[in-house]
């Protein structure tokens, strides 16, 4: 391998986000989902049983990602205030479900991006298991919308 190729490889590695950066980004998505379901429950914009279940999952995802960040040697950004719910439609249950489906899809896409280049093998499956839960949340929300599930 030439010196130029070695240099390019080193530059590419330096330019790629670190595992900790990737987890911090995912934590941002999960906190926004957590805030969204909490607000939807407070405003009766989601069926209470469904909302409590999805919110409970988001609590666990946030806790898991915070722990993952710690394992990677970085303290998670402190959540001093609830994540923003700007742009989320709480006008009714269908409106919220439509908004939440989009949020969940963005999060799943972010997990796919992260898993494509993630280096720490020990965290790959836990991250994938959270991604899979997000994909299942989409199905639960599509049920609310009466959209064909497959």
């Amino acid at each position: 391998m030439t010196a130029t190729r070695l240099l390019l490889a080193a530059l590419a590695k330096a330019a790629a986000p670190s595992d900790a950066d990737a987890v911090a980004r995912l934590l941002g998505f999960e906190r926004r989902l957590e805030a969204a379901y909490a607000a939807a429950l407070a405003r009766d914009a989601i069926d209470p049983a469904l909302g409590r279940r999805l919110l409970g999952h988001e609590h666990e995802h946030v806790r898991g990602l915070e722990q993952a960040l710690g394992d990677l040697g970085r303290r998670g950004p402190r959540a001093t205030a609830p994540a923003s719910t700007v742009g989320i439609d709480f006008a009714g249950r269908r409106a919220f479900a439509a908004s939440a489906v989009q949020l969940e899809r963005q999060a799943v896409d972010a997990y796919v991006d992260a898993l494509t280049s993630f280096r720490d093998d020990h965290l790959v499956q836990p991250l994938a298991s959270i991604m899979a839960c997000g994909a299942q949340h989409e199905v639960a929300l599509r049920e609310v919308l009466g959209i064909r599930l497959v």
Partner: protein
Amino acid sequence: MSPRFTRRGVLGGAAALALASCGGGDPAPAGGGRAGSGAATLSSIVALEHAAVAAWATIGDRLTGDAAGSARAIRGRQAEHANELSKLVRAAGVAPPSARAASSYAPSFPRLTSAADALHFARDLQERLVRAYFEGLVVLHDAGQRRAIAEIGAAQAEDLAVVHSLAGDPAAPQAFVTGTS
């Protein structure tokens, strides 16, 4: 104490055994590509997907109405996944495994006598698929292969959620979806 064998447990065990015998446990293909190419891992998943296509046809035969339509749609998705992954195997320089005749898979599937049996089998099948994709993520290193595996793994989890829903259960019952092997 003697172990308890529930009908659901027997069906689940049968699903794992059936898939292992139908492709999931196939050895790496001969001439499996250069070391680290991912061809062997991807080929194993392609073989599993071929078995899943046949399994979903069997599952669909026991369902009616919307559930049967969902089974057809999921079967079609599994076939697409097999095609997509087969392209990746070819790109790694190896011929992907071909689907066998449906009749060769059928004898190893559990006997399904009702829609409930079919949905139990479907759930275990989808759990097994989710697991296979997540295990693949750990051993593959090519970014393109990993992206495909992650995307399809998420799609498998969606299909598992649909099965939960068809069975009358919450679509997303747990916070961490790990699949079962």
